[in-house]
């Protein structure tokens, strides 16, 4: 496992919360940032802040170089064939919206179908609802089974000649399920559909190789992988990007502007109107360097071991039910659970007093919770800086929850 001293790299983890050591278990929402990322951000603003792709002077050149180096770095991180296939966005949500508004409007027609799954985050549902309503297309959903796995046996029925796009998560932000993207992509392509992968929860936690996945689009965010908020990327095959109409109009994305019309730059600049988020994209590369210092395979292994430990420990707490796959080969470290007799909000409140940060609510996945028959759940999610000790603190905290809420309610043993 990754040694515990890695925690020293994260200034925020050094503080106490309600007079107890902070146990941060909400990395699926956003990760914490190592000191070198924070320092790189300060260095950018103190030493070479300038607008990109415009200036002749030294600072502008240096900022442009760093910004484009970051693009190369991000491309290499997911094994994209060309850096021009990386479009910087505000994050995963904007990347998915970019595809819906540009590729979607140009390619989705009345009667077409878009296949999603029932475990999607709202950011991979709502943009397609907007597109479908506008174009008269239809959304269909691949369900998941009681063990939190996608019901692949229904794929053949749902994939038809009307299916133009399959958009799915690579790793569920609630159930932790790692989906079989390669197989689904193969079958989608055979049916003539393109595939968009929501990599918000996978790219930070395991090696992701777009060429191995075979998908057509990948959306992901910097802030869930030790980088800053407000930066992310869309990766897409160059031929797709080249054929797609622009997203936002403005400076930086044009070749020539006349009074009635304009011509546009080649990808990726066609999709990056206005001054981009220069600082955060540059610093994202620092975060990637940091993660690759451990190796994504090592981070995945760390989380696999920690998840196995967490699932075993949580099973020991009476009244706790964990959702998602039991087999850690099939899941990542986002662990949703409920405590009988205690609402997730109360669970999170009590845990907060113990210094433990977990998430309570629907985690932007209402259809998934409805499918589970829940309106909310509690979620603990892991990253490289979490330790078995964090899990022990969590299970001790859940005992406090039980003491507070169960003597008054009839709790059935599970």
């Amino acid at each position: 496992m990754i040694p515990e001293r890695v925690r020293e790299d994260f200034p925020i983890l050094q503080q106490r919360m309600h007079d107890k050591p902070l146990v941060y278990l909400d990395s699926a929402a956003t990760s914490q940032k190592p000191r070198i990322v924070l320092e790189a951000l300060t260095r950018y603003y103190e030493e070479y802040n300038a607008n990109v792709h415009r200036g002749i002077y030294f600072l502008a050149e240096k900022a442009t170089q760093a910004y484009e180096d970051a693009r190369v770095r991000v491309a290499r991180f997911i094994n994209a064939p060309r850096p021009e296939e990386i479009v910087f966005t505000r994050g995963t949500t904007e990347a998915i919206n970019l595809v819906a508004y540009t590729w979607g409007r140009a390619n989705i027609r009345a009667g077409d179908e878009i296949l999603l799954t029932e475990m999607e985050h709202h950011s991979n549902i709502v943009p397609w609802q907007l597109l479908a309503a506008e174009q008269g297309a239809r959304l269909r959903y691949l369900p998941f089974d009681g063990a939190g796995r996608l019901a692949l046996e229904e794929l053949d029925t749902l994939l038809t000649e009307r299916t133009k796009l399959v958009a799915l998560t690579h790793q569920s932000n609630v159930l932790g399920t790692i989906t079989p993207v390669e197989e689904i992509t193969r079958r989608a392509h055979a049916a003539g559909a393109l595939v968009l992968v929501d990599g918000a929860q996978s790219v930070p936690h395991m090696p992701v190789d777009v060429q191995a996945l075979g998908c057509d689009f990948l959306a992901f965010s910097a802030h869930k992988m030790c980088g800053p908020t407000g930066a992310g990327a869309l990766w897409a095959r160059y031929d797709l990007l080249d054929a797609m109409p622009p997203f936002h109009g403005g400076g930086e994305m044009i070749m020539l502007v006349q009074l009635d019309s304009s011509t546009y730059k080649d990808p990726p600049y066609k999709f990056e109107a206005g001054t981009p988020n220069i600082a955060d994209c540059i610093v994202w590369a620092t975060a990637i360097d940091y993660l690759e210092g451990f190796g994504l395979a090592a981070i995945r292994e760390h989380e696999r071991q920690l998840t196995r430990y967490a699932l075993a420990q949580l099973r020991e707490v009476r009244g706790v039910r964990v959702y998602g796959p039991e087999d850690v080969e099939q899941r990542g470290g986002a662990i949703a659970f409920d405590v009988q007799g205690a609402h997730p909000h109360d669970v999170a409140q009590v845990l907060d007093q113990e210094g433990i940060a977990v998430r309570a609510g629907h985690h932007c996945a209402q259809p998934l919770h409805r499918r589970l028959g829940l309106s909310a759940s509690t979620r603990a999610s892991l990253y490289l800086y979490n330790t078995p000790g964090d899990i022990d603190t969590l299970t001790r905290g859940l005992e406090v929850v039980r003491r507070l809420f169960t003597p008054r309610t009839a709790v059935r043993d599970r």
Partner: protein
Amino acid sequence: MALDDLYREVILDHYAHPRNRGHLADAHITVEGANPLCGDELSIYVRLEDGVIQDVHFEGRGCSISQASASMMTEEMRGKTLAEARGLVESFKAMMHGQASAFDETDLAALQGVRKFPVRVKCATLAWVALAQGIDEFQQGKPAAVRATTEAPE
């Protein structure tokens, strides 16, 4: 901030043993309150006789604060006119937003502890805001089920 302030014994008692819980078949006012972000959901049913609240029931699921507050409210409202009920809602909201309690002799006083946990105030006020909305729409001649929330700014 101590948890004891939030989870007072009387609150946990109402949560575990909610009063007036369940559907009310011949309700004159039906309101649904929901805070989707939290996952708090309530339905409130009011039966009237000669303009006086004869019975208030609630059902739903949610956190201890939202459920206990709804349970306490059903006890408080019985026998009140709609105008009195509306006044109680305003007094309760005022108490939850830091003003003096008008409920010192009742279980509701225990909910003052929630004020120390600002994000939970909306859990406590959900049932009350929903009831107020139901009363308002009933008086405007719209007796159909309405929806209320306390997640948007009140």
